[in-house]
């Protein structure tokens, strides 16, 4: 059991971060805190996918002249994909912060309930 948990530590770390992010998004009414939760969810997925390519004794996927066996390298695909996902995440964060700034300038607060009250 302990070995199972330790062997899949990446998975448990991911679940912890993912659920924590969801909880923050659901329970907080401050827009910036919601964004933090959202970013935690995104990052937890990225962490999980990158950890898929981890391997004991493997090295980074840059071809070395004396190391021709493919098994000695880490799988380069998940990190490469996640590089794209990180860029997408940064873009999302940029747009969301811009929206938050827009709302703050107009209503002078970042509390969702308060903004609602001022709209009505």
């Amino acid at each position, binding site marked *: 059991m302990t070995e199972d948990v330790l062997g899949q530590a990446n998975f448990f770390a991911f679940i912890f971060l993912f659920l924590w992010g*969801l909880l923050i*998004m659901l329970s907080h009414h401050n*827009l910036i805190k*919601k*964004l933090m939760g*959202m970013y935690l*969810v*995104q990052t937890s*997925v990225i962490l*999980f*996918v990158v950890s*898929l390519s981890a391997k004991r004794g493997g090295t980074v996927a840059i071809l070395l002249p004396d190391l021709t066996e493919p098994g000695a390298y880490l799988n380069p*695909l*998940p990190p490469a*994909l996640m590089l*794209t*996902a990180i860029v*997408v995440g940064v*873009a*999302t964060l940029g*747009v*969301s912060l*811009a*929206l*938050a700034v*827009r*709302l703050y300038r*107009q209503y002078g607060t970042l509390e*969702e309930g308060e*903004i*609602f009250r001022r*709209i009505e």
Partner: protein
Amino acid sequence: MSRHLPVLIFAFPFLTGVAMPLVGLWARAWCRPLTLIALSGMSLLTLLLLATVVEDGPIRYAFGGWAPPVGIEWVADGLSSLMMVALSLIALLAVVYAGSTLVQGPLATKTALYYTLVLLLVSGLTGIVLTADLFNLFVFLELTSLSAYALVGVAGGHASLAAFRYLILGTTGASLYLLGVSFLYAATGTLNMADAAQRLPALLSSHVVLWGSVLIMVGLAIKMALVPLHGWLPDAYTHAPDAVSTLIAPLITKVSLYALFRIAYWVFGPETMTAQIPILPVLSWIGAGAALVGACLALIQRHLKRMFAYGGIAHIGLSVLGFSLGNQTGFAGGVFYLITDAVMQAGLFFVAAAASSMHGVRELGDLERLRGRSPWTLAALIVIALSMIGFPPTGGFFGKWYLVLGALERQHYLGVAAIIGSTVLTLAYFFRIFEKVYLEKTPVPARSPEELPWTMRLGLGVVTLALLILGFGSDWLIALIHATAVPKGL
């Protein structure tokens, strides 16, 4: 030449979109003509693509000469080229319709950025439709959504809050989708759809595949606003500027729905999705429920755009029901209904935009102001309403007809009941609209009819005509879908 068609189609909106901010710096007056040229060129190429695909079969395009499954592959088959034709024509029509009248308020000072976002949105949707790679689909899903958040939120005020919520939910959906794709990748070691489809049958007992498929479906269900995950849609569509809601309402949810069923049928296959991982039966129940819930919620709305938004949610449910019946009739009916629904949503939001920008009508209570003053808007609304309810000879009738046939074939009687129930509810909420327009006794101030600009008349006319053409040409279109667009093994 025809081998490169898929990527040429993408290049039109994408390159123009990327260049648009620079064009805006030098010559702002050129932004709109350039956008129209790009979308027209794209539309012509999609028609050519459809003709080529029907003639010679699917076109497979490997990027950078890396053969799939190593490289990224795009596939234009019958279904995707049909979707491309509908998508590009509706986008063109929406931009024509918005004209210079609707691009107003906060959009007017940022014309270049508005057209940039419109073109990026269209290129994102193109990518979703044409790609045959699961991760590539995620990137285009996010490109589409990011443009949509920005377009919805640009007006400030309530629209920004709606966009913020849309962003939070949309990003959660995208993260779930990405997680599901990474599960599938962990199980199969591939991201190419056709390659994954070959490897999956041997791995079906794996929990990783099961959870991967569930996560993908939930993620895309958020993006397409399938009840009960539709929370972001009504606010976003109601508060978005008119020039934006006319564009995103007919396109985004429909293309996300397409992506879901592209994966369900082309990666997992109909047999797997009904037997080992019973997602299709579940979706058919949810679709039936969504058709009823959406129509009920539409019935109790007072705000015109909000009512139409809920109507759209109900129609998404109907299309989902058709697609998930798991037989050819239902699938073809689903595709047909999806295209008809895109035209109807475009039409409804065109009408709402005309009513609010020309006559200041936003609530149902103000509708009487349209009487006798806006013949074009009302004539179009009558035809669209007939199609939404499902009267012959409009497209809506034939769509529902094939959905009912498919449901009967599968003996999904609750589905049939949901289609009929949703039809009655649709009749009821359009009755509320026309009651307000024609039966209210309050005297209307005698004023001469206000003319709509020609772009808006053109848009309303084309939508009306398209619904009738879809009705009269339904046999031909259904035959085309049966011949080219239905997945193998159905």
